């Protein structure tokens, strides 16, 4: 049957350009229904969407040529034959209309910006920004003339969406301090009013940002006993017994031989990669890797190559070329090759294709560095991150890195792996010799939450939270798709980016949501592709169904206002009552 074929083909990931993919569970009749539903959307949406399917009366479906849908389907089928990939979230090609409007959008902003810059430059208008002190008049300017053009003229228009101060715990709900700008975001005044909003912005995946309960009491006790600092590095006099306890626990949690912890997540990457690779080594890094990884690689002095985001085919191409041609100029063989990837990409919501990477690893003998900043705690049936999610033995990955900032509601990071690796880190990490070690209360928070996740605190809080998060993720993604928001990323990732394309839409969406009591994160260039500005939602186990429903209601209303509900992607059938009942907040 054609229907089945199409769906099968579409379920795998599409080509590099990223066309439409369906992820449709269910059988027979349901499938036909979905495709019919898709058809309706497709017709309404016309040519703007990539592959459009149309339903026929007898329930059989045929791909209808709309643009080059047929070609794309062929391509997808071909890809399915050549590379069996794990289930991966869909990614929609930017519709051409949106591209034009977005570029036009930037064009207007840029032209206005330039006009304004000239008016400021020749003192026709007074620049409201801060300027350099008079004493430094004849110094070389600290910033090039048009260096911060983007910041002054484009970012500033959306500046109120960032660094919004809050005055309480960033839990399921939070208190955002209202601020007004009398001069178009150059300066702010806090009005003193506090807006209570639903928090879809913090990385509080398991809801451990809390201000009461047994974990909280332990932290309080430790603060009184140890104080709130350390004043020394691990190698000197900063190694508290709490840190050692945490390291043993972390190793057990990860299932590795040993682990080492650090006081800042960012620094864990930036200060430990240099201990692992040096000049003459090659680091192959995902295009969208976090800035801390990029910095660490830069500090290490190793050569860098980049592969397309989460694209194992491209990775293999880079690997083959790199190994066969060796180091540049001398053509000596590389000392070692390290591949650096993240578990969940925080801006894309995608999950790393780990099984395929491990298969490649066997063939190409590289080492794998996995940054689980967002995935640890948030993924997998036991909350052990990506490895747990795919059911992979932790020994398959050489370096497991993660942070305690997100799921654990503390701060700091860890590196786990073989005994030899951790021993090497203990001797050579920059952070160990020169960085101040982590204060005991923070360490205690991690210990308490980790014990809870492992179920060793005598309750099933941890397990319930993991389930609740998984359910919330499924529910939210499902409902957003039903509303025809352009949701991207892996279906099981609690990071949900919703594409808006235009920076101004992002601004409008975010502000209107805030007015209605919902906080979301807005992301745009340079954190994402220029044309793919987006709203990002991070779910938490602390969100109840009522909160999510309220949030969805707000998003739906605002989505209509800013015309963000225009996805051409069909979605799976609505959740059944049973599925909805399956989990209630624990």
């Amino acid at each position, binding site marked *: 049957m054609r229907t089945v074929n199409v769906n099968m083909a579409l379920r795998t990931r599409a080509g590099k350009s990223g066309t439409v993919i369906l992820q449709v569970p269910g059988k027979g009749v349901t499938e036909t229904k979905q495709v019919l539903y898709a058809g309706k959307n497709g017709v309404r949406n016309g040519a703007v969407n990539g592959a459009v399917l149309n339903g026929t009366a007898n329930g059989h479906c045929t791909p209808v040529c709309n643009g080059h849908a047929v070609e794309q389907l062929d391509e997808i089928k071909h890809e399915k034959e050549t590379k069996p990939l794990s289930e991966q979230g869909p990614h929609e090609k930017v519709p051409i209309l949106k591209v034009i409007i977005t570029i036009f959008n930037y064009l207007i902003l840029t032209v206005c910006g330039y006009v304004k810059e000239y008016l400021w430059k020749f003192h026709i208008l007074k620049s409201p920004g*801060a300027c350099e002190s008079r004493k430094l008049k004849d110094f070389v300017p600290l910033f090039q003339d048009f260096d*911060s053009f983007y910041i002054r003229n484009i970012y500033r228009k959306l500046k109120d969406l960032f660094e919004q101060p809050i005055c309480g715990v960033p839990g399921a709900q939070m208190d955002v301090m209202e601020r007004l700008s009398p001069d178009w975001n150059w300066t702010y005044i806090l009005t003193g009013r506090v807006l209570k909003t639903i928090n879809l912005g913090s990385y509080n995946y398991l809801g451990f940002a809390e201000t009461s309960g047994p974990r909280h009491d332990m932290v309080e006790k430790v603060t009184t006993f140890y104080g709130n600092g350390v004043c020394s590095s691990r190698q000197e006099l900063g190694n508290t017994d709490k840190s050692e306890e945490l390291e043993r626990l972390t190793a057990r949690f990860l299932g590795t031989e040993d682990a080492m912890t650090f*006081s800042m997540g960012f620094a864990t990457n930036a200060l430990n990669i240099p201990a692992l690779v040096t000049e003459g080594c090659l680091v192959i890094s995902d295009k969208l890797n976090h800035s801390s990884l990029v910095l660490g690689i830069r500090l290490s002095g190793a050569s860098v190559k980049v592969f397309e985001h989460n694209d194992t085919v491209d990775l293999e191409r880079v690997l083959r070329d790199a190994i*066969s041609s060796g180091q540049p100029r001398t053509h000596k063989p590389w000392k070692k090759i390290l591949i650096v990837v993240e578990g969940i990409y925080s801006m894309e919501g995608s999950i790393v294709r780990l099984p395929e990477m491990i298969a490649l690893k066997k063939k190409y003998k590289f080492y794998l560095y996995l940054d689980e900043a967002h995935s640890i705690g948030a993924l997998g049936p036991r909350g052990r991150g990506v490895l747990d999610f795919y059911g992979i033995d932790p020994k398959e990955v050489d370096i497991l890195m993660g942070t305690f900032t997100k799921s654990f509601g503390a701060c700091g990071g860890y590196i786990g792996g073989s005994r030899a690796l951790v021993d090497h880190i203990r001797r050579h990490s920059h952070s160990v010799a020169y960085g*101040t070690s982590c204060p005991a209360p923070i360490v205690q928070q991690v210990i308490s939450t980790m014990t809870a996740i492992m179920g060793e605190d005598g309750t099933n809080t941890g397990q319930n939270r993991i389930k609740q998060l998984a359910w919330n993720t499924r529910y939210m993604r499902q409902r957003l798709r039903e509303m025809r928001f352009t949701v991207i990323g892996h279906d099981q990732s609690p990071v949900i980016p919703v594409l808006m394309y235009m920076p101004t839409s992002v601004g409008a969406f975010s502000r209107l949501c805030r007015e209605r009591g919902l906080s979301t994160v807005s992301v745009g260039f340079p954190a994402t592709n220029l044309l793919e500005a987006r709203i990002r939602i991070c779910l938490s186990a602390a969100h109840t169904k009522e909160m999510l429903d309220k949030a969805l209601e707000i998003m739906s209303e605002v989505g209509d206002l800013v015309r963000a509900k225009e996805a051409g992607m069909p979605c799976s059938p609505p959740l059944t009552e049973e599925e909805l009942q399956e989990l209630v907040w624990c």
Partner: protein
Amino acid sequence: MNDNMESVLPLLTPEPWSFGELFEAFRQAPMYHLIFEGLLIIFIIRLLLSKSYSIQSKMVLTEKEKDQLIEEWTPEPLVPKLPDDYEPIKYRTVTQQGGSMLTVDGKQGINLGTFNFLGMLGRKETADAAVKSLKKYGVGTCGPRGFYGTMDVHLDFEERIAKFFGMEMGILYSYGFSTVASCIPAYSKRGDIIFCDEGVCFAVQMGLLASRSQIKFFKHNDMEDLERLLEEQVIEDKKNPKKAKKTRKFMVVEGLYTNTGQITPINKLVEFKYKYKVRIFLDESMSFGVLGKTGHGVTEHFGIDVTDIDLISACMENSLGTLGGFCVGSKYVVDHQRLSGLGYCFSASLPPMLASAAMAALDIMEDDPTMASRLQARSEHVHEELAKIAEMKVAGDPVAPIKHLYVRETGDKTRQEIMKLLELIVNMAMDEGVVLTTACYLEEEEAFLPPPSIRVAVNIAPTEDQLAMSLQVIQKVASEVLQNEV
């Protein structure tokens, strides 16, 4: 078209190029000629546009060859294999801290090892502030500053610290190391020039490396050497004024050097700043709260105007006794870091309880402004006492609370052997109830590896008696160990 004119003109003027004539000639030329010329022109264009061919033909490997190379390639192990008789590295374990005492590996001793200069760690006020904040905000912020990780405490602290220094704006980082390592590359880019002291600590070195600027090291605290480099640069600039107009220049120094205990002559640097038009970045991680009459740092120590310094960075892990770091400066300068400071922008913000503790520590500092001068007096006393050890050389400015004790007569001992001796002194002092530490460095990574030393950190928490007792112990133990050796 104008036959008459054309017949007359050649007689009056030299024959001009007329388009008509040219066109006529073109029309009359035989076809084969035109084709030939056309081909010639195309050939010339091709020659001009073609890349010069390389002598080595481009290496193109077949897939089979690649497979073979991949097959043959054996990488080095990720980390060196552990020897069979390896001993796992063991740091000393601290089980109780704060105040004047420290319990290390089960033994209690008077603390002369950690940078708890003002004794803030272990004071009830700071711990109480932290607990109070914990009850309101929880532990982590679950987000970077940009995305709901900005709490009112952070804003308050930024305002407060800027006011404390008398600067326009402050910015709060969540880790001391990352503060200076992020703020340097936020301004200094590829092509810019940084004049830097050889004695700077590792965090500054990482900042320099991340900036990818041209680094010119001058000898530690040697202003003549710095002036020589600056003069050289002036000559260089004259050669290429266009480039000089775009090259930013910075001097990066530490107020009080962790690695040597010396104080930077900031007054001289300010003089150079205006003379050579070079900006100053000052790291006050060690000097903040310590130098100057009321602990405002090295600027107060020399009595210069703080606004002459372009950017001051410091960590809160020493005098303030918590975690994190901050930068202060003019709004124009500091605000830039909110998008360009990597460690600010891409890291989760500081747990609010630690920010509150820092604020409480700042309160204590302001309530009791004599703390810094008391510490300096004590440091001078310690310096005198330590100088009495014949076998050791004490380095560091007398008023600075950081003292490095070097072995005076090293003979032909290797670095490892000297380190062993120093560790022996540290361990014996521990047995006698004094906590010391050797200065730990990554020997392969340091740009200028300092000689091995015991680093004494003077702090105001111990009583006079405790201090006198610990100084005696150090003198005794050091003499015992070194007399036998040398």
